[in-house]
């Protein structure tokens, strides 16, 4: 039985390029880190999210000077004013760093170019934390400028009443917020759900905990062991006792490390579509 098909392909015999090409070098972590960092800035929404850190710091500082009692303004007032927008923006950055891969379906490309999801997520986490630290430096820098301007207007000496240890605590408090956002992002892999989750944990639960504490004495005494915010908020303005540090560690384990571990496990096993 003969076929009448024209064997056009018969001439292609020996392939000129063979499988003996040397394998490329393994992708170094640095490169993944660099790419993930770029991905946090290169969309319009990402860019404005980052820009909003600076913009919000400036607005908060200006408002403090314009609306506050200038005679009483110290660095602490500015740090407080600048910190409040940070506590909203930074965790959202943490959430979106993870969830945008799913909501925009870029995970398809990301995880085929780097099939090690752990590496990618590690890079994202590291970037998130670095951005958090840098943002806090920027925010407090803007606050410091505000403090100088305000004292120049009133003609008094600027009051620098934040110790470097307190500064470190404020950064830590914000990093914990970002970690919580990141963990919720991994857990839900859905931007709206993770954002709602973050605000519920951060802004609704303290009220509930307070209400519960009012009704239950046991909770009032022991909430510090279960309520992440109770000790985290202390970081902003006081020195923590040994017990409070332990409580902070325990609640972070409960509210951040545990969801992070569960979320990581889910992401590593999930199907990317």
């Amino acid at each position, binding site marked *: 039985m003969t076929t009448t*098909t024209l064997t056009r392909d018969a001439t*292609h015999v020996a392939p000129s390029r*063979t*499988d003996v090409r040397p394998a490329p070098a393994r992708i170094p972590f640095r490169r993944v880190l660099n790419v993930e960092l770029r991905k946090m800035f290169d969309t319009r*929404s990402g860019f404005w999210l980052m820009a909003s850190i600076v913009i919000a710091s400036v607005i908060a500082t200006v408002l403090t000077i314009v609306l506050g009692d200038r005679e009483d303004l110290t660095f602490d007032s500015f740090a407080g004013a600048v910190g409040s927008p940070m506590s909203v923006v930074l965790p959202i950055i943490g959430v979106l760093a993870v969830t945008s891969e799913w909501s925009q*379906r*870029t995970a398809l490309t990301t995880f085929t170019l780097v099939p090690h999801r752990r590496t990618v997520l590690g890079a994202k986490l590291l970037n998130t934390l670095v951005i958090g630290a840098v943002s806090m430096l920027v925010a407090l820098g803007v606050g410091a400028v505000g403090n100088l301007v305000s004292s120049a207007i009133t003609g008094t000496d600027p009051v620098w009443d934040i110790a470097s240890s307190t500064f470190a605590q404020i950064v830590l408090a914000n990093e914990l917020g970002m970690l919580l956002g990141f963990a919720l992002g991994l857990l839900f892999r859905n931007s709206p759900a993770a954002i709602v989750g973050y605000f519920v944990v951060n802004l609704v639960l303290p009220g509930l905990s307070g209400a519960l504490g009012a009704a239950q004495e046991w909770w009032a005494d022991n909430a510090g062991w279960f309520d992440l915010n109770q000790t985290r908020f202390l970081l902003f303005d006081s020195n923590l006792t040994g017990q409070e540090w332990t409580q902070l560690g325990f609640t972070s384990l409960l509210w951040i490390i545990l969801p992070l571990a569960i979320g990581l496990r889910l992401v590593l096993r999930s199907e*990317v579509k």
Partner: protein
Amino acid sequence: MITVESLSKSYGGFKAVDDVSFTARPGRVTGFLGPNGAGKSTTMRVMVGLTAPGSGDVHVLGRRFKDLPDPGREVGVLLDASAQHAGRTGREILTIAALTMGLPRTRVDEMLERVSLTPDEASRRVRNYSLGMRQRLGIGTALLGNPQVLILDEPANGLDPAGIRWMRDLLRGFADDGGTVLLSSHLLHEIEVIADDIVVIGNGRIVAQGTKDELLAGAGTLVRSTDGVALATALNAAGITARPTSGGAVLAEAELARVGQAAFAAGIPVTELRAAEGAGLEEMFLSLTADSQREVTSHTDPEGAAA
């Protein structure tokens, strides 16, 4: 080189991929053909590690995809051209991929030119891209690392006729240079034109595979008259296995001259007589995947197909 060995994947009780094995070889274009929902995309997702297999193995260039040190440099993948961040520009998407693979930035411009995206188009955000432009960008991402293997899921989707021609030439050239190409399609014609080897999948199972020539060889001759049934009867009487299909057409498993002589001998006027190349593969596609076809195909009767 891609080797798929007894791959299975179930969702609950539903077997999306059921014991699939095949090999896509270097220097050849392998067409992965099947109706919608046959399991093509799931197989490809398992191939590149996006979906964990239920059982079985996939090796690309002799390794599991996860073990490739820098996958983009060895395997170009395009699964869904729309799965890109709508807020990034086309150039940015290629830049990110180039950075991941550790390639120089100049490679991005080369590739934009290769996939015919103008600088103006490349600086637009993907949200404003047509499906065809996204497809070109996706093919650009796949080719960026100068890979040895291409895995493309429905790459012709959304391309205009000129684009389809362009892609066909591109894949042909890639294979001729010794590369391995695996592309899926639910369009028979597309696969028929471009593929050297064909793997047909239906309901998660492989229903046929081989070189295009092998798969076409059995198809024989298509002969048409006003009364297909009478013609088929006459040919069968002459010792030729033949069955009527539609519109008076008959598929006969014999060479052209013999079929013509048999029809002439039976005194039946023939309106068309040709090698059943295309018709054969179409017949095969429709019959082999008849169970999994979503649309009820009225023009072939399943009884005939089974014969």
